[in-house]
């Protein structure tokens, strides 16, 4: 039966009529139609978590905004991906994430490939105005494979999912509540587990500089240096 492949759901995104297949998310349909919705915790090959809320969009008839990365499309949906309300909300979320972020971009290895920084720049989030606490943790460099600097973690849960779903190892979990929530190993031990080999998958998925390969003395830095132009 071929009907599964038919684009049988029609909806409206930003005033133009588009179509999609049953089971697709708003994000997938938007992407197919060249509409860019920023995401931080979403990875196509991993199960969604809906944690960062940066992908929120406006759906007519819904009081709150909905996250594009996990909300399935429905017939006749009317969606706005860049309305003032959406942009305002997205900016606030990114500003909040930046406010508690350690802010060592200048000396961060991932500075020029950091997703958070990119999103903040795209949304024109300047210096955060919220004076919340900065996350601060000791760098964990016990493991020869992964160095963890949880001060830079944005809690996107990507490392947890990549380790669980791709490497099938389940090394990471979450602990603590509220602002203290943290990605941990066991009962918050520094990562140094037998099960963690050198697959390094979590490092590749980490959108910030929280997870890096431990530096060996004399090793060259990967990527271009950060250039700041005025």
């Amino acid at each position, binding site marked *: 039966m071929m009907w599964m492949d038919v684009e049988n759901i029609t909806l409206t995104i930003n005033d133009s009529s588009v179509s999609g297949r049953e089971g697709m998310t708003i994000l997938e349909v938007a992407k197919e139609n060249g509409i860019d919705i920023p995401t931080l915790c979403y990875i196509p090959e991993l199960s969604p978590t809906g944690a960062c809320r940066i992908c929120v969009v406006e759906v007519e008839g819904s009081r709150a905004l909905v996250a594009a990365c996990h*909300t399935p499309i429905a017939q006749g949906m009317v969606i706005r991906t860049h309305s003032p309300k959406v942009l305002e909300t997205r900016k606030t*979320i990114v500003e909040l994430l930046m406010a508690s972020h350690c802010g060592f971009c200048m000396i961060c290895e991932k500075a020029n490939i950091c997703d958070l920084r990119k999103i903040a720049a795209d949304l024109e989030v300047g210096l955060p105005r919220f004076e919340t606490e900065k996350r601060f943790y000791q760098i964990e460099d016990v493991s020869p494979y992964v160095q963890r600097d949880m001060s830079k973690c944005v809690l996107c849960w990507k490392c947890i999912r990549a380790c669980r779903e791709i490497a099938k190892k389940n090394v990471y979990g979450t602990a603590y509540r509220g602002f203290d929530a943290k990605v941990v190993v066991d009962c918050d031990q520094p990562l140094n587990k037998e099960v963690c080999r050198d697959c390094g998958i979590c490092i590749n998925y980490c959108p910030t500089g929280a997870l890096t390969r431990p530096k060996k003395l004399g090793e060259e830095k990967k990527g271009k240096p950060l250039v700041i132009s005025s």
Partner: protein
Amino acid sequence: MPQKRVVLKNCGIIDPRQIATYLQQDGFKAWQKVSTEMTPEQVIEEVKTSGLRGRGGAGFPCWLKWDLARKSPGIEKYVICNADEGEMGTFKDKYILGNDPFSLIEGIAIAAYAVGARQSFIYLRAEYHYLLDLLQQAIKQVEAKGFLKHVKIDIRLGAGAYVCGEESALMDSIEGKRGEARYRPPFPTTEGLWQKPTTINNVETLMNIPQIILNGASWFNQIGTERSKGTKVFSVSGDVAKPGVYELVLGTPLRELVVDLAAGEKIKAVQVGGSAGRIVPYDKIDTPLSFETVLGSGAVIVLNESRDIVNAVYKSLEFLAEESCGKCAPCREGTKAIVGIMEKFSKGEGSERDIKLLEQLSSALPLSSLCGLGQAAPFPVMDSLQYFKDSYQSRIKEKKVGVVK
């Protein structure tokens, strides 16, 4: 009389340790009627006609949940009774559980029959562990009478997290995981506990079921207002002479509850619905209590003129920030940011700029948070900014320092 006993009908009348005393009060007559005369569809129809809405806070139509779960494919389904009662200033479920566990069990039996569930869980707040034995004995007695052949009821204890009262985190907790909100859809009625169709109802919602079946939906439908049927059990605390549990017909003005019954004096404001509830200033004290206006979980905290609103809001937000599950960014970071600003105000360091920031956060959190905690967290901030703005502004002008208790 606005006071009416529907939910609390047997409280104080029966002995919670003796099923015989419950049977004397028409106990399990509703279940007998359901199991002998009614199909599950008819039960759902009856609940629909009654207009019963969830008492846990959100006010979702009870029948619709049951219907969706019933119609979801699969033979394995669950009925959960939410007895987590973590909301600040709520203690009505504790009173109900301790005084009339049998009505609840009868309600669960009927719900399970309607939904088609063979397993049910009561998720009990960790601090209520002393009720565990009473509940287990009650379940045993009901089993011995042969009323629970179709469903097994187990009790699961929480571990002290407020967010685990939120339905999706609650299911995580029962599954043995850390309680974190899940995104929706899928809703619990299609993919709930262990990905199976599940209904979750508050204790009080289920307490209404036997009465609706016994007395008929039209009897229930006549009580209350247009869109809020039946009664509501309130937990009244704070600056009142007679704090406690009161059951009132929905639509009763707040004044009757806090002034006439609980004997509150010199009231400044009333926080209805707990930490993330609405703040009703004294000049709006005649607001009817209903789903259309203010209600929430039925927590009613009275603040008299000696209280400082800014500090009350600060304390509420501190609670919410600490209890956020920490999964979604707006709630985790946003509640923390609000607490930071409120702290500034309480120290007399706030500014007009901070009010702007509070407003910005109050608009972003309800729009983007993953679950009800973050969505409702800014309500007390918004309400206090609306009704008690001078309380903030006087702190800016006079650099007034509040006593933080």
